[in-house]
């Protein structure tokens, strides 16, 4: 039977499990979170572990803070193999220490770098493509549907940029909200916080019109280039981008 090791779904418990596996010289067939349904050839294994901070400190001291952050980006990705990639990365990290990041001859290193770049790239795109609208009570509200779990990093970006506003960002796909109260943001389940988002502020419509007008005018017709536009701004983002949402 193929052994599947199960962790809680959060980063710390994944790292604790990986640390346990490495210390006991176990090579798992796969690692999955606790929502995983095994197939007939797979055996689920639950290990009871305390999530302890020492494990994290130890990993950071070996691979360094930068690379640790890279692993966190991988953890936020929607990639199905991310856990086992992180496992092999840390395994090699214990061997090569900080220089593991240069070992592009190892598959797990290439994958780690590729996936983390992809997640960072998506975060960067959303810093630009996210659109707030102003609700009746002056709260700014935005919806996103990202592939990866970018809400935390996006929120930390907007908590600096719009620090004196109340805002809410909803990840429609994952059903989670980030709520900011001019001091800090928290990320919660959408069921835990009810908001009505259909009543807009008085000015909202007028400002949206102004922006759409600007968008239309700023394109130079003699240079029209739709291919290029779609390359940089793929259609899957358009639903939530005000100025192109009705062009879809």
């Amino acid at each position, binding site marked *: 039977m193929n052994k599947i090791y199960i962790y809680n779904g959060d980063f710390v418990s994944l790292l604790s499990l990986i640390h346990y596996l490495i210390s006991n010289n176990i090579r798992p067939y796969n690692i999955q979170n606790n929502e995983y349904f095994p197939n007939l050839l797979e055996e689920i294994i639950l290990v009871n572990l305390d999530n302890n901070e020492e494990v994290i400190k130890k990993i950071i001291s070996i691979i360094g803070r930068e690379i640790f952050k890279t692993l966190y980006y991988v953890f936020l990705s929607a990639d199905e193999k991310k856990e086992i990639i992180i496992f092999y990365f840390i395994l090699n990290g214990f061997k090569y220490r900080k220089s593991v990041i240069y070992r592009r001859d190892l598959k797990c290193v290439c994958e780690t770098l590729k996936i983390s770049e992809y997640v960072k790239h998506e975060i960067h795109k959303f810093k630009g493509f996210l659109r707030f609208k102003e609700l009746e009570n002056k709260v700014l509200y935005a919806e996103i549907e990202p592939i990866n779990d970018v809400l935390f990093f996006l929120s930390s970006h907007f908590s600096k940029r719009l620090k004196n506003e109340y805002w809410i960002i909803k990840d429609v796909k994952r059903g989670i909200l980030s709520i900011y109260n001019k001091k800090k943001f928290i990320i919660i389940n959408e069921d835990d916080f009810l908001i009505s988002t259909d009543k807009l502020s008085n000015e909202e419509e007028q400002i949206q019109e*102004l922006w759409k007008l600007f968008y239309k005018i700023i394109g130079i017709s003699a240079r029209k280039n739709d291919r290029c536009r779609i390359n940089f701004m793929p259609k899957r983002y358009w639903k939530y981008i005000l100025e192109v949402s009705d062009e879809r």
Partner: protein
Amino acid sequence: MNVKEKLSILADAAKYDASCSSSGSNRNSNSYGIGNACSFGICHSFSSDGRCISLLKILMTNSCIYDCKYCLNRKSNNIKRAIFTPEEICEVTINFYRRNYIEGLFLSSGIVRSPDYTMELMIRTISMLRNKYHFGGYIHAKAIPGASKKLLKDLGNLVDRLSANIELPTENSLKLLAPNKNQSEVSEIMHYVKDNQSRKYVPAGQSTQMIIGASKESDLDIMQKSENMYSNYKLKRVFYSAYIPVNKDSLLPSLEKPPLVRENRLYQADWLIRYYNFKVNDLLSEDNPFFNILIDPKADYALRHLDEFPKEINKCSYYDLLKVPGIGVVTAKRIISSRRNFNIKFDDLKRMGVVIKRAKYFITCDGKYFIGNEFFKKDFIVSNLVLEDKLYETKNVEQLSLFSE
């Protein structure tokens, strides 16, 4: 006139300026303010022409006392004129910014009454935005040639980036097409900004723009002008803007389409000069003053210098790696850091980001050719590269990104 009408006139009049990047500055607002600037530029949208939109790009006014032949706003054109009040500009900027439509403001202007008077109006607007609205986002302003040093100083203290457009590569063309302007007024601005630039004064540095194809200069003339400006004034960017005929004038060329491929070649070459250690003389010469329209400047260089190739991936220097078509700055750095740790094989290259179908003609790994030795011939490579570029175009892959710095 309401704000909507003004915006439609004054955004339309501003759109031909190519500079739109918002990078290079780290700024924060005060505790009750709004906004910050990221050193990595953020694109908020892409217009129908495929260009990045990151700033609210508008003119303060499209009235102008000058009569530049190529410009829509020239005095002799009979068009509708408008002027924004400082409050209107501030309100629109803040409202757009709060909704995350934009990274900030790009303010330019036609010249009303005098250069000084125009700059004063711009300063009043931007200072209102910074001090009354506490805006900490990105601001790019055009400096008006001929305005006083004092005003240049005040404006530079408020903005992230300043630019003065050189417009045309030579004084002669400028005299012909923009009779009210002269290069020395523009260079004076550039000099002043260079001498005073700091974390407080124009922190994101200065840029300029040249119009391509409205006058007779060759690519060599244009690139030499750029190279000079980069070294003399520490410019962050030179923008190249394919000339778009908006006016009829006997002094202007009549073009069917703006010279977009030429513009793209200039950007590619500019990139090579800023990041790849190329010199203009490597790319162009008196005998060869125009870029090859079929092949990008780097591949063109490689093909004219085949004797310098192939480069050995596991041994050659960083700058040699940069000369290989299909290897960019990031990839070259990866190769260097990797090969300190292990011996690179062909299979590793693709995962490192090397564009194999371009690079394969120009490299060896441990002395081995990627392609058969007998194919290391100019004609063979040229026809393959051109063919691949054609496929590349039709297959719709990202073109050189002009906004990422």
